[in-house]
Structure formats: C-alpha cells, structure tokens
C-alpha cells in the first residue's frame, strides 16, 4: 500500500518529464478559458488568455513540480510561434493592394505611434520611481513577443516581467481600442486593425482577425512594422540615456 502511494506521489514529476503533460495542460486551460470567457459574456478586460494563464499557474502551483518543469514542456508548443509568424504572410498578401494604396499615411503615422507606445509607459514608470531593469522590461511592451524578448535581453530587463507586461498591454490595448473607437465613432476596420496591431501586438492581432479579415491584415501589418521599427530604434535611443 505504501509502495503504491509513493508511486502515486511521484506521478506528477514523471508526467512533466516529457512535454506531453505541459502541452495537454496548456491546451486544456486554453479551451477552459474560452468556455469560461463565453459564460462570462465575453468581458473585454478579461480575455480567455488571462483565464487560461491563471488556471495553468494554479495547477502548476498545486502539483509538486516547478514552473521550470512546465516551461520546458511548453517550449515545444511555442516552437510553432515561428511558422505561425511566417503564416501571417497570407493575410498580408491578400491586403497588399489596400496597403499599397495607403503606404504614405501609414509610413507617416506608424513610427510616431510606435514611439509613443513605448515612451508613455517608460516615462510614467520613471516618474513613479521604477528602477532601470523594470524600465527595460516595460519599453518593448507593445512589440510582438519574439522581438520583445530579444530587446528586453539587450536592454537588461526581466523576461518574466516582460511577458507579464505583454499580456497586460495586450488586454488594455484590446479594451482601449474598442472603447475609444466607440467614443471617437471610428468604424473603419483598417484603422481599428492598425491600432490593435501597433499597440496590442499578437494579442491585438488575434482580436482583429475575430473582427474581420481586413482588420486582421492591417493588424498584422501594424504589428510587424512596429516590431521592425522598435527593434532598430529602441536600442539606439536607450543607449543615449543609459
């Protein structure tokens, strides 16, 4: 009997030795998050991703495994992030005629928007007395995660704090775009898509695809241009100040 209990208590560690358990947990939490999100009547301040992340954190905390065990397994799933980014070429190509017609206004407004997205947060945090490593983790908050992780590393920020900042920014941007575009009476899907992509990175882009293909394509465009622009400019500006 004791032998059997001992084997039972080792089970969670053995599950998480291979990536299967982490992947299953992630997918399970994802669908649970979507289910609960629908039951809660789709609150825009609490997207399915937040619910799912909290569920995963609770499961990991209640099992005798560490967050590193989970991360190791889940990194197999995150391998798909690369091909998924390349796949954004499809909506981008479909909207190419629209984008070509608008390249001038986009090129004029996008660098300013991307700069402001980083500056507001860094300035507010600096005024409130946040130290340099916190500022470095907040600066790339509007950039898609593969670029942002590289940037935070280069500036000396924290990886975990940056991922949290990405989630908070994504949620706030989705909520903000829907709320403010209603107040400003903006219904143009191109504009809403660009705003979601520039401010809300991949989370905003996913939301934009839910609103329609045009919004989604413009969000992918906004996300990739913001990423490219920030990746080049942010390290230069940062080293001027620090």
């Amino acid at each position: 009997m004791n032998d059997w209990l001992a084997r039972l208590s080792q089970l969670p560690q053995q599950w998480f030795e291979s990536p299967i358990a982490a992947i299953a947990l992630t997918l399970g939490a994802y669908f649970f998050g979507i289910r609960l999100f629908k039951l809660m009547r789709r609150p825009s301040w609490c997207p399915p991703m937040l619910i799912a992340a909290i569920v995963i954190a609770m499961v990991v905390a209640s099992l005798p495994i560490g967050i590193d065990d989970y991360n190791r397994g889940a990194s197999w799933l995150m391998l798909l992030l690369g091909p998924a980014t390349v796949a954004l070429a499809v909506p981008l190509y479909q909207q190419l005629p629209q984008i070509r017609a608008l390249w001038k206004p986009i090129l004029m407004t996008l660098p300013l928007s991307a700069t402001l997205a980083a500056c507001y947060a860094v300035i507010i945090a600096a005024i409130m007395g946040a130290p340099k490593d916190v500022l470095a983790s907040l600066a790339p908050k509007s950039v898609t995660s593969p670029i942002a992780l590289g940037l935070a590393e280069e500036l000396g920020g924290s990886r975990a704090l940056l991922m949290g900042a990405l989630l908070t920014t994504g949620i706030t941007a989705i909520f903000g775009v829907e709320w403010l575009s209603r107040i400003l009476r903006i219904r143009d899907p191109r504009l809403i898509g660009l705003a979601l992509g520039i401010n809300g990175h991949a989370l905003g882009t996913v939301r934009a695809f839910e609103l329609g293909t045009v919004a989604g394509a413009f969000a992918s465009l906004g996300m990739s241009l913001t990423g490219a622009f920030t990746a080049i400019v942010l390290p230069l500006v940062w080293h001027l100040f620090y």
Partner: protein
Amino acid sequence: MSVLRGFLWLLAFLLLGQTLVQLLHIPMPSGVIGMLLLTLWFGYRGRMNPDVVHVSQPLIAMLALLIMPGVVEIFFVADQFADQWAAILTALIAGTLLSVLSSLLLMRRYLPADDEPANPLGSIDHE
C-alpha cells in the same frame, strides 16, 4: 497532405529568414523576416500557394495560445517586483490607453476615408 506541404513551405521560409538574419545581422526574429520574404514570393508569383493558405488559417488562430505559456511565469516571480507594482501597472495601463488614443487620432487624421461600408464590430467567435 496539403496541410503538411504548406507547413513545409512555412518551415522553409522560416529557415530562409533565419539564414538572412544571421548572415546580415538583422535585429529582428527569423519569423518576421520569413513572413516578409513569403509575402514577396507570393507577389513575385502573382498568386498564393493553396497549401500555404490551408495551413495558415489554423496556425494564425493559434497565435494567442502560443503566447500564453510564457505569461504563466510572471505569477511565480511576482514578489520580486513587489514594491514596484503600482508603478508597473499604472505605466502599462495608462500608457497603453494613451498610446491607443494617440494612434487612433493620428490615423483618423491622416488615413483617407474608406468608400466601402465599414464592417460593424459585431459577432465575435473564439473557436
């Protein structure tokens, strides 16, 4: 099979992107360069490869799922930044709302109005 063939295309362009990133020291992830190269390739051919179109839809729908595992860690290191939370949350929430407002205003000012009837922000489905 079509999905797998499309996936191979995506992997090939991802590797091509990685090659360029390493050879030319581009400060961007391979995926973004791969995406731009694939868009250029479609433009050069004048049409999209149907296999790639097939595989792209489920992958794009998965993007949010793929970010989630990285987020979980923040709940475990939260006490490291215990005295900074007020500054961090204010900066993120107020900063993002401000930047959304300024980009919406900027774009409304400079983007020419669309002639087509706009999509109403209606039914949204996550699955």
